[in-house]
């Protein structure tokens, strides 16, 4: 069974036509991979479907805009993967 990061990286590669081998756990979806907010909706859709969750994009965006969080916390892929794991765990709890 592939890791959450592997699944996310594959989704990003396929959704945004980015070479899979350029996507690492340290990659920042926005700053490094150049994914914009609209493209990220497609990624969020694919992640929601793959993991059976609902990424709280609005909440995250609000936190970043309010200075309560950084984009790194949500959009560096290892952190995004950790958030997904948390959401999956919360759902099955």
């Amino acid at each position, binding site marked *: 069974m592939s890791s959450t990061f592997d699944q996310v990286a594959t989704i990003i590669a396929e959704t945004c036509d980015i070479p899979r081998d350029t996507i690492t756990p340290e990659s920042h979806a926005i700053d490094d991979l150049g994914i914009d907010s609209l493209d990220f*909706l497609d990624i*969020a*859709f694919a992640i*929601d*479907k793959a993991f059976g969750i*609902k*990424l709280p*994009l*609005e*909440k995250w965006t609000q936190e970043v805009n309010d200075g309560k969080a950084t984009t790194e916390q949500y959009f560096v892929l290892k952190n995004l993967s950790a958030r997904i794991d948390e959401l999956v765990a919360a759902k099955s709890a």
Partner: protein
Amino acid sequence: MQLEYFQLIDRITDLNLVKQTITVEAQVPQHNTIFEGHFPGYPIMPGVLLIESMAQTSGWLLLALMKFERMPFLAAVKEAKMRGFVSPGELLTVQASILHEGSGYAMTEAKVSVGGKLRSNATITFSHVPFPNQDLRGHMDAVARRIGLPQAVVP
């Protein structure tokens, strides 16, 4: 259909909030300046307007599902297919259903039919935000009444 005001939907004929589906009708006008240019001697409804009709239909479904607390805005159109011409005077049946409800966005699948024959379909993405002002909210309420959105749906 009031093309000059970009209001493509005439009436809602079915709205099912449980199944998350909507069906509307839209009468293509017999005469409109759009048809003078699209195309001279061979008037057909522009494909972008068929897409807009699907977007507006989807939008009404989303408005109803979100209890008019948020306004959906068109964000992306995928897999839009124009499967047949639509001519002046034809009655469109436009249907939409929810493909996915995300956080701050939603995706729908929509189709346009004439006389039971599919003419166009698309997958559409919307971002949605709280109503930016009361003017827009009031306008949407008024249009909702005009096109027959069940009043129980409008808070």
